[in-house]
């Protein structure tokens, strides 16, 4: 009875209400970065989990390698996203179109790291390759009736 009474009284004296919180532009980036952290932590947990189970076949070892590469990729991607905000757009020139875009000097460590992080596929492709190898090895073991 009391909650209904309270609700009735409050409804009779309405004031300003800001129930919906507005989100600024950086929030998307933060969420994305948190997702990288969350994904990295999950991969670390997966590696730990695989190492602590009885599964010792080649397939599981490949899966561990996949996790490590993916962790590295996460680190690179996280760094890359962070450096995006730090490198000024004036540092780039593209007189003859997008493909001719160049990173202008002077080259600080920030710019060099930035350039390096743009090559993040050098980690993600090997990671996926090891995942492929791992799945293939597990399938073969299963087909041959071997221990997985």
């Amino acid at each position, binding site marked *: 009875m009391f909650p209904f009474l309270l609700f009735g009284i409050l409804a009779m004296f309405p004031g300003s209400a800001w129930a919906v919180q507005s989100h600024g532009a950086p929030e998307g980036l933060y969420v994305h970065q948190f*997702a990288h952290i969350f994904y990295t932590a*999950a991969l670390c947990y997966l590696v730990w989990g695989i190492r602590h*189970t009885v599964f010792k076949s080649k397939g599981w070892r490949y899966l561990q390698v996949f996790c490590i590469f993916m962790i590295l990729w996460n680190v690179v991607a996280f760094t890359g996203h962070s450096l995006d905000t730090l490198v000024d757009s004036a540092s780039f*020139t593209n007189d003859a179109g997008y493909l001719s875009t160049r*990173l202008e000097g002077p080259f600080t460590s920030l710019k060099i790291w930035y350039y390096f992080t743009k090559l993040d596929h050098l980690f993600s492709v090997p990671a*996926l390759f090891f*995942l*492929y190898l791992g799945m*293939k090895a597990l*399938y073969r073991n299963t087909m041959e009736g071997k221990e997985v």
Partner: protein
Amino acid sequence: MTSLPMLPAIIVDMAGSFIIIVLSFLSLRYAWLLIRRQPENFLWGFLFYFCLTLVCFSVSRALGHLLKQLLLIFNYTEQWHILAPYTGGFNTLLMISLAAVSIYYHKGIEGYRAIQKKAGSLKIANEQLEVSTDKLLKLNKNLEKIVETRTKKLSTSEKKFRNFFTNSKDMVYFCDSTTRIGTMNPAGFEMLGYSMQQTPELGLKDIFHNPEDLEKYTEALTTEGFVEDMEVEFVRAEGTVIYVLLSATALFDEDRKFSGCEGIAKDLTRVRTMMKQLASSEKMASVGQMAAGVAHEINTPLGVILGYAQLMMDDFGPESEEGKNLEVVERQARACRKIVADLLKFSRQSESARENILLNEVLEDVLAVTEHSLNLDHIQVWRDFDEDLPTIVGDPEKLCQVFVNFVNNARHAMEEQGGGDLFLSCHYEKERGQVAVTIRDTGHGIPRNVMPQIFDPFFTTKSVGKGTGLGLSVSYGIIKEHGGVIEVESPVQTEDGELKGTALRVKLPVPLLESAAVTNDNHREKSKQS
């Protein structure tokens, strides 16, 4: 170097994106093959969902990157700025999903291992169960075999004892503690004259003739535990008494309490009768020998007395006193000679003829002589003669004498009561090879105490002067001479019960080759005479 080209990064980005899509799909394919091969395996389920999420992430990210590069290459910068937040948002979402799926690995594995452990335990338990079931099956099979063998043995044994019980010619019975007969074999019912269906409550007290015997029997069972070769008399259903040899064993329950008995009874009535007959015939033989000796010794002086008496009668006139006295001497001497002749007949010392005889004719001759006097005494004669009787070999006159004796005895037995019935029957008993003649009267019968003496010479129950006591003795001697037997029943036992009177049964053998036997006999007679 004043600047670095971004082209290598662009190329790596585009090529890498493409390769990632391909590799992620290849990985998903293997995960799908694994899950299809072992659908129940948690690991393959986890890897499948992991690869699926990774494919979504790779496709989202790689396509986003390719789109970005292409839009920027073709100078659609504005459009990319519009699309960029969407691809980024999708990437973030799928990356979180990928992380979430990864986290479940460990817990999933724990659950999987727990299930595996349980499955292992179940498998072991199942294997043990299978082994136990196998053992149980073997044991069961073995048990079935043992039971089958035992049942077979038991059945054989039961059959054997059942056959013994059913087919035994002696009475076999089982009694409870109150001496009520619970079970008895068919021979027992037959021996006692009861029907198997009509005697639900038959007790030993109903079949023991003397209650003292039953008392002794029960006492011996309870004290000694058995009864061996006890001679007792049983009463048949219709009231006749039979002599049996009884052996029984007491039955005791777990508390060593008398619970009943099992016994065997052998009917000795026939044996006993035969023994009596044997003893009687031995006695008659010795009496016959003695009588023959006495007759021979008396015959000579009797002949001298008769001779001298006749000589002296010639010297004195028949009207003189001496003549009359000598006549008395001669008459009495002749009477003595008849007695001596009868004694010789009894001892079978007299000669006899041998010829084929039809007993019906002999009996008719006997009745022709005696029927008149029988009618005078109000005695009704009943005939029952087989028409196709075989002939026997013997002396018709002697046999006639025998039957006249029997008829006269019957008449004497019935004349006191003023008449009666006389039954004469003559039957051929083919299986025994003999002809049986029965002469039964409805007179006063023979007292039990005199029964053993009736064939003794000079034994008579008639008053002095009415009989010499040689009639039955002579008859006995004649029948013996013919190879036959005489049986006496008084009172007469029939299927309908006991009848008043006496039955004399003469059984005479029928020769296998009648004519040959007579021819040989005649030949012997002739050679004797020559």
